[in-house]
């Protein structure tokens, strides 16, 4: 082996190590910004590629990206993806590119811009694939739902493994080899020319600058256009799109009560009560022990004014879970609306036995006791509701009523026993 060759390899290795260390140090403070850029771009890509949309929002925080989805029926954060390891692909690749002399800053700028563009596109693709994988994993792990068809899952798995392999091996190798080749070819072509015809070649004028400027402008324009496209904020998913997505999840999971419940919840929030009731009914057929769909059915009936049906739903919920405070409170309300004040007061009392700090139950019980002409007991609960809830304390009508009752009954002292008395 020749000495100069080994010296060149040694020099190259040393330059690579120093460049890697410097780039890594420079990377640390900008990683958060890069993750934010990836998150915004991935949001745009997902809005274009997911039809119907499953991931409806991304929010970066430091090195992690939080995913939002409506898979549970309401748009909410479901999981997060840690982008900390993205530096491996960025720093290693760029260090390999920067380690070779390019023969002028313009050439180096073209090389660096081009490489940054390639690395960014690669990391963006990886981010999109991994975010979809995380969403699928979350739904499978927490709700037992499949978000994707078996062929989509297989494709995501293949793409994930392939991209990691590409990022770990092929991308740095490719950038390294092309940089090496570029330096090699430049030396090969320029050295003999400058030696053989010194009179016709001035040093540093081997290539016409305009070509490099053109390349630089082309790469910069491509990068700017890409960023402008990617950073255009995507439109929020429409009601129909989300509905389509949830219906697709139902179709992929026909035996899952959770899928029907999520669809029902979304339809209920979207003011489609009849369709929501049907979805909840399907969920209950698949799992009669489910409480939430029955409770929500009660709420829909209550809002529609069908209080008898609402009472039936709430009683079923309480049969399954006797300590369901909201069901007891809502049962009391449905009974109250039917004029069954004694039974309503009893339901409210049961709710307060379980949770004495339930402000709206105190208020409801207070109102019911007023109608039952148990005014001083009513005062205790109305006062307590105002203590527990700022909204109630700011309610002038409630305050006026409390003041009036105070005039009749004096300052109330007992609170908890009053609830018990209400029950009796």
């Amino acid at each position: 082996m020749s000495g100069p060759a080994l010296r060149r390899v040694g020099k190259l290795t040393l330059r690579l190590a120093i460049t890697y260390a410097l780039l890594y140090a420079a990377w640390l403070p900008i990683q958060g910004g890069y993750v934010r850029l990836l998150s915004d771009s991935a949001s745009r890509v997902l809005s274009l590629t997911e039809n119907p949309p499953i991931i409806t929002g991304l929010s970066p925080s430091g090195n992690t990206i939080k995913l939002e989805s409506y898979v549970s029926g309401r748009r909410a954060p479901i999981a997060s993806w840690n982008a900390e390891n993205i530096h491996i692909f960025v720093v290693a690749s760029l260090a390999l590119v920067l380690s070779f002399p390019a023969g002028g800053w313009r050439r180096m700028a073209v090389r660096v811009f081009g490489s940054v563009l390639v690395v960014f596109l690669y990391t963006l693709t990886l981010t999109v694939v991994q975010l979809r994988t995380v969403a699928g994993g979350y739904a499978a792990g927490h709700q037992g739902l499949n978000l994707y068809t078996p062929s989509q899952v297989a494709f995501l798995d293949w793409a994930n493994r392939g991209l990691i392999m590409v990022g770990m091996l092929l991308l740095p190798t490719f950038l390294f080899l092309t940089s090496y080749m570029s330096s090699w070819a430049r030396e090969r072509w320029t050295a003999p020319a400058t030696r053989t015809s010194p009179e016709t070649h001035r040093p540093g004028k081997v290539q016409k600058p305009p070509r490099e400027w053109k390349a630089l402008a082309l790469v910069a324009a491509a990068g700017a256009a890409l960023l402008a496209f990617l950073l255009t904020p995507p439109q929020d998913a429409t009601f129909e799109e989300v509905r389509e997505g949830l219906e697709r999840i139902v179709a992929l999971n026909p035996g899952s009560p959770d899928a029907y419940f999520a669809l029902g919840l979304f339809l209920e929030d979207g003011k489609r009560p009849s369709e929501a009731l049907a979805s909840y009914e399907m969920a209950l057929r698949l799992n009669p022990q489910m409480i939430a769909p029955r409770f929500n059915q009660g709420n829909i009936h209550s809002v529609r004014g069908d209080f008898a049906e609402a009472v039936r739903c709430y009683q079923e919920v309480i049969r399954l879970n006797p300590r369901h405070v909201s069901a007891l409170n809502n049962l009391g309300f449905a009974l109250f609306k039917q004029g069954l004040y004694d039974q309503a007061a009893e339901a409210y009392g049961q709710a307060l036995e379980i949770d004495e700090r339930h402000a709206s139950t105190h208020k409801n019980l207070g109102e019911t006791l007023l109608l039952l002409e148990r005014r001083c007991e009513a005062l205790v609960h109305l006062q307590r509701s105002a203590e527990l809830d700022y909204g109630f304390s700011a309610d002038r009508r409630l305050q006026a009523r409390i003041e009036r009752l105070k005039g009749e009954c004096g300052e109330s002292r007992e609170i908890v026993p009053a609830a018990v008395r209400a029950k009796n």
Partner: protein
Amino acid sequence: MSKARLSRKNRGAAPRADSELRGRGTTSVSIRFALTFLFLVLVFAILTASATADRRLHQPLSRLTVFIAAPILGIFGAASRSGTSITFNGFSALIVEACDGVLPAYIYLSAVLAFPSRMDQKLWGIVMGIPAIFTINLIRVITLMMVGAYWPDLFERVHIYVWQALVVALSMAVWVLWAEVFVRPGAAPGR
């Protein structure tokens, strides 16, 4: 026609045209190398992903890796092997397709074949480089088994981050050595 040429040459225009050609040559050689390299990687990726390749290439290579690694690990502790699985001091691992060294080997091979050089130089690259890369992979398997046995918490990190980067770096080091030692001293690139 010749008059015009002469007059342009006399004004000093010819050297500029000459340098433009040289510039285009540099770029086209680089682009041709990059495209050939990617094409070869794609071809090898398709070829090595088939069921036949798994039967005739990956599995024998995995078994060979285990066959060589087990006695070497036996020097340092209790090592045993079975098919493509290897155990060292209670830590077991399966040598799968991604760990048999085929991927870095065909990336290296693509780089050697795509690089503008003569056939004999390419042959040297293959003869020298492929065994070197499989040796690197063997060292990787042995050290990973040791890390797994002695520092199991570090295994995943070393497996994914340290050795992946090292495989790239060492494969490229082998390639650069080949390019610098076997190709550079020769004449202009063969293509």
